[in-house]
């Protein structure tokens, strides 16, 4: 992707549209007779104000690629798949950008904004995470915030500000393609969403000689508030389950994709609750609507 736009007077345009790669995960798993590869890429489509060095608005984009092979995935194989994900007009990224391009726009002066402010990862979630994410829950929190934000903008069409990895340091450091780095301030949001991934759970639903049916559940807490005066609009637990059939011949189960699916279901349920709750819908979502 290499789009170019001309400028009549470059000095008059402090606003710049940018696409930033904010999250990159390559998860490799080895099972009895095959190797599995999961590539998760998170992007933020941003409008940046270079004069004020501030993020004007953002739209999160998440894309995922899953592959399996009898041979292990080497670096070249991963690179090739990533290239397919992000390069060219038929790539996942291009399709995602096109789908969200109309939502990225400078806010009007009275536009209220929403931000995923905090993400908590509970201890009961850790056993289901790959080792890499268990060691770095901040990285997983970033993914959670981005996936929730991406779903929220798709389903509710709200003006969103990027998740700040470090809650105390509300700045976003961006390294540009020319290797220069600039730090942009993320403005204070009008409303905030705190997510608490309390944990995952699996229960055996049915079992026969041939297969077992497991239910994987994701347990989430969602808190929607106005942060300055601490006006709370929604504070509810949400849970969502997905089923997984495991053949008796299969010795081990890759559980992370299953709980991730359950978590996405919980996100959708949480967003539906936000929309169904009159208070949250009228006072938060409608005010943040683009």
């Amino acid at each position, binding site marked *: 992707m290499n789009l170019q736009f001309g400028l009549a007077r470059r000095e008059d345009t402090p606003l710049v549209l940018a696409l930033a790669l904010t999250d990159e995960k390559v998860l490799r798993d080895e099972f009895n007779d095959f190797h599995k590869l999961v590539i998760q890429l998170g992007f933020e489509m941003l409008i940046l104000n270079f004069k004020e060095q501030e993020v004007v608005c953002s739209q999160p984009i998440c894309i995922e690629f899953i592959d399996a092979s009898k041979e292990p995935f080497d670096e070249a194989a991963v690179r090739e798949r990533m290239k397919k994900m992000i390069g060219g007009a038929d790539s996942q990224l291009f399709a995602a950008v096109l789908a969200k391009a109309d939502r990225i726009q400078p806010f009007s002066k009275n536009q209220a904004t929403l931000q995923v402010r905090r993400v908590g990862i509970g201890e009961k979630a850790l056993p289901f995470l790959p080792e890499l994410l268990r060691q770095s829950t901040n990285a997983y929190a970033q993914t959670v915030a981005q996936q929730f934000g991406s779903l929220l903008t798709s389903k509710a069409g709200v003006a969103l500000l990027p998740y700040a990895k470090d809650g105390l340091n509300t700045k976003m450091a961006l390294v540009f393609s020319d290797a220069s780095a600039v730090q942009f301030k993320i403005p204070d949001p009008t409303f905030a969403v705190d997510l608490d991934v309390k944990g995952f759970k699996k229960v055996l639903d049915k079992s026969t000689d041939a297969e077992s049916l497991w239910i994987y559940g994701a347990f989430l807490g969602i808190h929607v508030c106005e942060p300055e005066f601490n006006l709370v609009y929604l504070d509810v637990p949400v849970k969502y389950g997905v089923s997984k059939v495991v053949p008796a011949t299969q010795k081990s189960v890759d559980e992370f994709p299953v709980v991730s699916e359950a978590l996405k279901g919980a996100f959708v349920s949480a967003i539906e609750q936000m929309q169904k709750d009159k208070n949250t819908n009228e006072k938060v979502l409608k*005010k943040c609507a683009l």
Partner: protein
Amino acid sequence: MRSIILSILFVVLATTLTAQAELVKVKGKGEIAYTTSHFKPGSADELATITEAKKDALKRYAADFDSARFELYKKIEPEMLANIDQYVTDYTQLDQQDDKVSKHYTVFIEASINSTAIENAIAKSSGVNAPAAASTATAKQDASYMTFVFVARELASRKDFDAKRTTVEINESSEAGAQKNKVAEDAQSAETSLDKSSVVKNTTGGNTETKAEDLTYRVTTVTEVDNAVNSVLTKASYEVVDPVDAGLDVESFKNDFSGGSDISPATRTAAIKNCKDKGINYIAIANMDVGLPEKDEATGLTRVYVTVTAKVSDLSPKFPKTVASIAGIPYAGLRSDPQVAKQNALNEAATRSASELVDQLRMKGVR
């Protein structure tokens, strides 16, 4: 494969969007007690509550000012609150609460505050032209001239001295004894014995002399710093004179700051004399200590701190007096490249310290 990357901007598309107005969003809360049996939406009470919320937003905005600016703001606060709609141009009502028991109505808003209008009001109240107008303003006949020397310095060498230890040792010894003679009863034989004791006294002491480290600085003047300071002072309507035109020997300032934290009496005397001869009433002198580059843990970028010590002297009285000063205020620059981080920190330090000095001068009515 690379590890998780903090943030990489890999496609940048410039757009032809125009900048929005200089508005700052601040939240505010307004509350009133109503006397009617129930609160009526759209009533004068509701308008009064929103006005209170706007005033609260302005106060919250001003609470972030530094002390000198806040003092200037406090002088005109009543007037600004009385004309709140000039400064709060717009608002979004976030929420409202009607406590029917205590008959209190509360409204929460997000106000758009016109920061330029506030800056103009502060500038006007302190007797100088508004910044917007200042750039085109011509020099007034009775204007006070100001010159400044801002030097940046960073550690060039550091000589540490070993501690000098002086040891004193006194050894004293003494012997004491008694001789005993014993004669036998038959007087045919005699026995002589000697009891002897000796004492050795050893006293040690001394002192350790530690000499202060010998620091040498590399001192420079930076064009970007001069431009930043000039811009702040000019916008605040001070008539700025280039130090060279003022007859100041900038090299002697640099020499003085290369070894210490203050200028020598000779440099000061010469500078004051030159300024007085040329009718320049104010001189600002600042040294900016550039720290060593360090890694910012949050972003992974390079951070450089610049610490500013500055003083503005009024030369119009018989003896010069200090009218504004700042001491040891650190400013940080954050970039991927250490050189750019340093330049960024110097620019930030120059702009903000000059603004702080201007606020202090305005507070004292110096113009």
